[in-house]
């Protein structure tokens, strides 16, 4: 256990020394400022609309759309962070010779993986939580619109990024760093694309597209988590406005049902087991 912490500590110290966090903080602050500015512009424009004959609630529409967009951005940035913190954890580091001196110590391979996972997952989860909270605050303070289940959506977003960190660590056992980074980001993109197709399927009532999206969402649960996060975000927006915001700016909301939480936990544990079995068999 303390060995895993030592490994996580090395990864975190590297990020600090290499100014990874400095870059992330600066760029995220820029992202936040842009978001603030965009939100205030949008809410200014919609404040004049008032109630209209279609029954569209302009504030809810603007708020939900903006926050949906922010969630997408947050998840994307969190995923990039998770991937970059894990992409070379096994093969990449073995090829460069960084891994061998550590792994011959008594700590063992499973502890090493646990340390790398803990480091990457906690950093990217904390990042996602902070950025998401910032986006909710900005939307609420600037536009006066607060989402339905703030915490529920945030937890799902955080879980999604943890899933990606686990997948990236698994990939690092088989692929060298660059290949793994590309692979995981492409898998992430494919999941989001399937989600988008799903929301088109919802709009057009295409069962094929819906089934495709649902399958993808379960195979890649970060997608199911993201769609479910969007759902709980706008659960209290009803009527025509509700119908519109549920389509979402980047992938629609979707009820994943009560099995989502247990499935996500089982999935991460399964991926972790697979990672540790594959690593145990690997010659370095």
């Amino acid at each position, binding site marked *: 256990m303390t060995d895993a912490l030592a490994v996580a500590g090395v990864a975190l110290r590297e990020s600090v020394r*290499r100014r990874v966090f400095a870059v992330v903080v600066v760029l995220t602050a820029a992202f936040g400022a842009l978001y603030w500015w965009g939100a205030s512009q949008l809410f200014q424009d919609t404040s004049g609309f008032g109630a209209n004959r279609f029954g569209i609630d302009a504030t809810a529409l603007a708020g939900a759309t903006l926050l949906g967009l922010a969630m997408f951005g947050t998840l994307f940035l969190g995923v990039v962070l998770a991937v970059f913190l894990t992409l070379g954890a096994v093969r990449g580091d073995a090829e460069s010779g*960084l891994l*061998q*001196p550590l792994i011959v110590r008594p700590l063992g391979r499973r502890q090493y993986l646990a340390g790398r996972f803990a480091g990457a997952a906690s950093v990217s989860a904390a990042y996602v939580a902070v950025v998401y909270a910032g986006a909710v605050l900005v939307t609420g303070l600037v536009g006066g619109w607060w989402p339905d289940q703030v915490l529920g959506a945030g937890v799902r977003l955080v879980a999604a990024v943890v899933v990606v960190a686990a997948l990236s660590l698994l990939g690092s056992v088989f692929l060298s760093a660059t290949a793994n980074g590309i692979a995981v980001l492409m898998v992430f993109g494919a999941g989001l694309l399937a989600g988008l197709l799903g929301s088109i399927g919802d709009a057009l009532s295409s069962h094929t597209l819906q089934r495709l999206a649902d399958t993808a969402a379960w195979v890649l649960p970060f997608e199911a988590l993201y769609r479910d996060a969007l759902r709980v975000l706008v659960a209290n927006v009803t009527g025509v406005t509700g119908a519109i915001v549920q389509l979402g700016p980047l992938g629609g909301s979707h009820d994943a049902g009560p099995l989502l939480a247990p499935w996500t936990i089982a999935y991460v544990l399964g991926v972790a087991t697979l990672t540790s079995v594959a690593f145990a068999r690997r010659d*370095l």
Partner: protein
Amino acid sequence: MDAALAVTGLSKRYGATDALRGIDLEVAPGELVGLLGPNGAGKSTLVKIACGLVRPTSGEARICGAPAGSPAARGALGYLAELFRFPGWASADEILALHQRLARSGGGAAERAELLELVGLGGEAARRVETMSKGMQQRLGIAQALVGRPALLLLDEPTSALDPTGRRTVRSLLEELRRRGQAVLLNTHLLSEVEHVCDRVAIIDRGALVAAGRPGDLSGISGVEIETASGIRRFPGATRDDVPELVARLVGEGERIYDVRVVRPTLEDAYLAAVAP
């Protein structure tokens, strides 16, 4: 007492390549054994199996009685890989501190300073790895392997990047390790290194053990060469003690003597004979 390293019937196949084919080798506690062999002979593979990085196809390796790769085995060894890197952002002191923690060494700052001093990096504790030359990094690698006073050191070409002074430093370091009773398996291409410090030598070629023994014994038969008017006369097996008698005999036979040489074959000769294609 268990051998520091006991390798029995060890084989390793990489796809179609037989890196090791049934190697038996033992390193007694406190013994310094040199492992020689041409490029691709399987030296690094053997060491990697011993420290649990590579899984053998058959056979086994034990470190102080514990199967290679087990936590107990890993806890008893120090390893310097042939190709390794330390994170460039870290300082020498931080690297050693991390390995102290992982090796469960309670040596603290005193041990770190002592190890750096031992490998000739005293005063460089705060230096970052990325600002070190290759040889300095290799010295740090050796210091890392020594953390926690392991019972067995597996050093894979520890002097490949070192200058002549550095090689001398390592040589006296190896002697120091022997005094402390730490066993060493030393992979190297430097025959002189082995000849001077190793208790025993093992030579492997294409994955098989082709010669083993004390460096002096391995060097094989010596002899005496005497240059006479009728050409060079060779007396294999003869020693320095035989010289007066040989000369007297030749002179008695009416030969004129110009030069007498006592030939001591080097380890190099033995090595070249053992690994001849």
